[in-house]
């Protein structure tokens, strides 16, 4: 099981974030490699993504099930690969700034990416974006930092690969999932701030 957790902050109120995130159609086409999605209900959807896999790319079919819609503070979800042996779950938590936000954990993106790493990174990006509303890249310096924002966003994602290659894939997830989460958290904020503006 590979685990990634990343927090970032914004001056936007958490209700604004929630209102954006709760409707997946707002951000579906911003998901990395997005090809299509089908919403079966408020809780269930299937997605087709084209994942960049280093020297190759392939289509990823995923089933996402929201297990908790507790707006505007918490969403939990489970995911299952339809054509890939992969399970996982995660949370997206929003809290007011007064609870003390922490700056995001900054990890330099991996310079060398092989196809498995990129696959896993794409998966990580997808699920973080799934819960965040996917947004354009935001510079790390744009993070509001401690004491400056109104909301803290925390993403937690756990991925468990299956099949005989699981040990190899698991070891590959660990070094890339956190940088992916960092990047995606920035994207979330960039999109929201683009839509709603900030006071900085």
């Amino acid at each position, binding site marked *: 099981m590979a685990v990634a957790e990343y927090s970032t902050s914004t001056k936007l109120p958490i209700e604004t974030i929630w209102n954006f995130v709760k409707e997946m159609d707002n951000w579906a086409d911003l998901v990395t490699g997005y090809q299509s999605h089908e919403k079966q209900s408020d809780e269930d959807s299937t997605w087709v993504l084209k994942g960049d896999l280093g020297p190759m790319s392939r289509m990823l079919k995923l089933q996402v099930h929201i297990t908790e819609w507790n707006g505007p503070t918490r969403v939990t979800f489970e995911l299952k690969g339809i054509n890939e042996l992969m399970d996982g779950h995660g949370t997206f938590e929003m809290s007011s700034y007064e609870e003390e936000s922490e700056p995001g954990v900054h990890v330099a993106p991996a310079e060398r990416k092989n196809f498995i790493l990129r696959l896993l990174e794409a998966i990580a990006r997808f699920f973080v974006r799934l819960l965040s509303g996917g947004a354009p890249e935001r510079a790390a310096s744009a993070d509001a930092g401690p004491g400056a924002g109104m909301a803290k966003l925390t993403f937690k994602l756990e991925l468990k690969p299956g099949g005989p290659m699981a040990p*190899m*894939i698991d*070891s590959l997830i660990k070094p890339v999932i956190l940088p992916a989460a960092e990047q995606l958290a920035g994207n979330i904020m960039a999109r929201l701030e683009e839509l709603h503006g900030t006071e900085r």
Partner: protein
Amino acid sequence: MANAPARWDLDIDWVSIGSGLGGVCSAIVAHDLGAKCVILDKSPRLGGLSGFGGGEVFVPNNYKMRELGIEDSDESGREYLDFLSAGFRDQDLFDKLLATCNEAIEYFGREAGIEWIAIEGLPDYYHPKVKSARASGRYMTVDLFDGSTLGEWQGKTYAMTPHVPPGALHKEMYAWGGLAKVTTWDYELVGQRVAEDKRAMGPGLMAYFVKAAVVDRNILAYVDTPVRELITDDGGAVIGVRAEKDGQDFFVKADKGVVIAVGGYDHNREMACQYESMPDWNSAAPPYFDGDNIVMGTEVGAAIAAVPPNNLAMFYGYNIPGEETDGSPLYRASWECGVPHAIWVNKKGERFCDEASYKDYQPRLRQWDGQTQTMPNLPPTLIFDQNYRDRYPLGSFMPGQEIPEELCVKADSLRELAEKLDIDPEGLEKSVKRFNENARKGEDPDFDRGSFSWSQRLVGDFDYPNPNLGPLDKAPYYGVKLVPVSVGINSHGLKTDVHAHVVHVRGQAISGLYAVGNSAALRDLGAGYQSGTSNMRAITWGYIAARHAMGKD
């Protein structure tokens, strides 16, 4: 000058068009002999086809097998390659190649830091049926390569390919059970190697050579820089190239020579179908091998030469829907056909070959029926049963994983499967019944499947008495329609002489122009092919070309 520019952007001694083994090796040798060199590649990465493959280099009586105490001789190697050539070789080229291959290999080991190893336990294709074949050691490859030593080129080379397992050495692969038993490998170790960018096989092999060239020697290299045409003088001598760099013409003057090392024409379907006499053509190679050798060579009068295509490296395989490499559909050669519990059949439902030996099935696929004006074995269909699915993968689909219907048809009976696949049901049932009866005895009296050591080693399952045979007797049954999948080794190429000079249609060498690797016609080895000979040719002729251009031979 015939088409020389008013101004050259770069004045240099040696231009390698292409960055596979032929291009890089020739640049290294030219550099070591005092030349200023540049390597130009149209793709985003250095490494060419060599960096995308298995990384085997077939060199009889090589020094690394001798260090291991494996018996061989030059005479035996010559005899084996003579057998492979089937009389279609050019004797002078054959002699030159064999006289130089060990010298070239040792040169790059000594001067370029290539960590050669002889592969133990990988037999020549025709072992044990041909006396001069060896059971082990003639294939060379490299030890693990640390990708981080490539510096800025780390991300501009192949860290891995979809066609061979990442970060695993041959001896490990065999110890873990081979390709058939990929489910039982040590993935903790493989994962660690991938995470650390420890490269093996083709990506590892090319990484050593790329490092020797562009890191250790600071040889100029440009990716995303296709060469559009050769520049000649009034006498027809090649004096440079016109490339395209950053969207602009980039003229490079080459005072000593230009080598065409761009592979063949796998991704030029029209050219491939015409030259290979096939109704369809696809490639496992990345989409950069589209006949530049033929186009650029013939533009300056080069002769095209050919060997019979029957024995080259054409496989049959499939594209997993949606899978691409660099924007082009990714085709996988199907190794599944040589694994127990799987067979190939034609539309009559009949087996027609030893499915575990592509040397056998390739010419049978090309069979022509003069009575019906058809190629009766095309397209072949891969048939396997649940025994197979319980033990082995299909491409990237592991046991227990659903295979998309658009790739693989599934049915509860052979008859139903045949009807779904438009195959004669009675023929299929009859073929499977006979195959099963013999497979249970570990025999294949029809096509002698499992009789080659190489087939056993590569795709066999050594849990079985005959590693390549197992009955199809457990429903459900599965079928995959296959298409041609070439691995970039073509029957036609530029005609070259004993110095790797390109030969003009009127017979003389074209001054300043060389061709090596898969860009040069296979006249040196004739009709024969054997894993590793393509890489061996590229290294050796690259070495020969550069030395000749620098006045050393």
